[in-house]
């Protein structure tokens, strides 16, 4: 009885020590991050963008997205004449579309990135940890996927699966995992040879325990930085796919807005207000993720610290 309790106590205290250490490491990293100006600018833009996306139902009426509700509005009205940001070829308010477009663009950007990094982490950790035959086969597959040009593959997949937000997420997710996989594998290969892994193995730890308790916590900073740097690529890919007509017209993203603008002749009509806001939105969000990711990389990877500035 008392033995069992002692074991429970030990486990909780060991865990608690680990958590305290982690919280301290996080606090130190945050302290450094706070003084990283580009990183804080990026974070600021992201907070604003996410707030706008979350508050979309309060900020703008969703019915304004459907052309059937806007037949009475003037078409291609400039911001000087109608609505804060003017209207598009169907009389829809550009500001309403912009606010709701943030939702779809950010949702696709984040979820597709998580999917890609999740697959990449599993493949990368497995390939690095097991090495040998399994690792070799996994890396061969990764290299094949790296070589297939991303955009044509994504286009073909999206064309076959049909246009919807879910399919765009799947398509980008399953075409973007090889880069994180390769990066994470390289890191795992060096971690695998560390003394504490040997020690833990000698004490009888299972592969699962080694991977989840020793390897994963040590690659997670890298995974975090890599995730942040993957989001801009994913957001730009989503914009391109939507522009090529593979997006969901009922849940317009910023890329879909650009497609609508181009298809409806906004360029010849010189209706710049229709396509400037979504393009700027994509650029600012992509830029913000790049700034945050670069800041994280510099803070978490001491070798890069010298490059700063």
């Amino acid at each position, binding site marked *: 009885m008392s033995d069992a309790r002692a074991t429970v106590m030990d486990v909780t205290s060991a865990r608690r020590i680990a958590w305290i250490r982690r919280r301290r490491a996080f606090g130190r990293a945050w302290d450094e991050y706070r003084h990283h100006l580009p990183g804080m600018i990026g974070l600021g833009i992201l907070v604003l963008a996410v707030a706008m996306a979350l508050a979309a139902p309060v900020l703008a009426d969703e019915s304004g997205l459907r052309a059937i509700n806007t037949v009475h509005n003037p078409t291609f009205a400039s911001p000087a004449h109608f609505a804060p940001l003017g209207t598009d070829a169907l009389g829809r308010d550009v500001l309403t579309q912009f606010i709701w477009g943030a939702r779809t663009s950010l949702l696709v950007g984040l979820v597709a990135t998580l999917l890609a990094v999740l697959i990449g982490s599993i493949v990368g950790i497995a390939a690095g940890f097991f090495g040998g035959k399994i690792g070799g086969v996994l890396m061969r597959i990764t290299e*094949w996927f790296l070589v297939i040009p991303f*955009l044509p*593959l994504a286009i073909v*997949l999206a064309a076959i699966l049909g246009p919807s937000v879910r399919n765009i997420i799947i398509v980008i997710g399953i075409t973007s995992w090889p880069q994180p996989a390769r990066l994470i594998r390289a890191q795992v290969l060096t971690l695998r040879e560390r003394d504490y892994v040997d020690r833990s193995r000698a004490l009888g730890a299972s592969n699962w325990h080694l991977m989840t308790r020793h390897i994963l916590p040590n690659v997670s900073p890298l995974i975090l930085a890599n995730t942040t740097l993957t989001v801009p690529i994913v957001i730009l890919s989503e914009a391109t796919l939507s522009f*090529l*007509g593979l997006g969901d017209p009922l849940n317009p993203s910023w890329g879909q807005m650009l497609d609508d603008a181009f298809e409806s002749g906004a360029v010849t009509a010189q209706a710049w207000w229709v396509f400037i806001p979504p393009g700027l939105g994509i*650029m600012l969000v992509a830029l913000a993720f790049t700034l945050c990711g670069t800041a994280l990389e510099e803070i978490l990877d001491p070798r890069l610290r010298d490059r700063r500035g």
Partner: protein
Amino acid sequence: MSSRFIAAKVAGSLVTLVFVVCFNFFLFRVVEGDPVANLYRGRNLSEHQRENLTKQFGLDKSQGGQFVAYLKQTLTLNFGRSYTGNAPVWGEIKRKAGPTVALVGISAILSAVFGVLLGIAAAWRRRTRTDYGVTAFSVGTYSMPDFWLGMVLLTLFAVVLGWFPVGGLEDPAASSTGIAHVADQAKHMFLPCLTLTVGYLGEYAIIMRSSLLDTMREDYLVLARAKGLRDILVRNRHAVPNAILPVVALLAINFGFVLSGAIAVEAIFSWPGLGLATYDALKGPDLPMLQGLFLVFSASVIFFNLIADLLYGYLDPRVRPA
């Protein structure tokens, strides 16, 4: 470079090419149950039309029979007939490759040259206004959708100011020859080329900057300075040649996208190349054309990756196996 190293790399590329060819088959036929229904989503198909299409895609044959037929056709560069052009896909691709290679090739070289120059300027004047300006410009243009930049430039310089034509390869009404003809094409190419150059240049500038910053810490640069070499010689003879290696690799890899790199930008400027063909094939949707384009795009990427590997082995002895 040993012939063994070359042979290994070439063999690796061939295996990858075979993988892509097989993948292409499964992509179009096995991914979802009924490719006919998926590709004609939302359109009314009569039972008769559906049967015809099924036969045309060869979907009435067994899975294995389809695969053998597909391999035979692919090896003889027979990708079927495109629906929109009603001509052999391979002929269409050959015809449209020229304008794309010209546009993307020129843009790739221009962006590499200007990107490298900007990167050198930024790294050499580190933590100055030049450095901050170059970095901000590079990261900013890198974050833009290239086709959006194209829309902005098109609206400003072609529609509002009227300095450049709004699209196409050449003026269809003009029957000029010689220099006037070339000048007309150059005028048509200017805006798409500017778009792609600005879109790609940031990546080169960032990579050149960080590579040069790494090189600048090397001892041989201290030695070069200690010898009393002028700053400009230290930079151009000692630092830049060593730092430029990753850029050369990036350029070789980017040349792989010489066929597929401008899909959306070509659509914006109605540039009659493979990108516009992809855009049109998607609107169709034109399945044989898409399939042929996908294979050709992949083959070009694989080929230039091989070139990049070999080039790297040649330029950097550390990569070569002993």
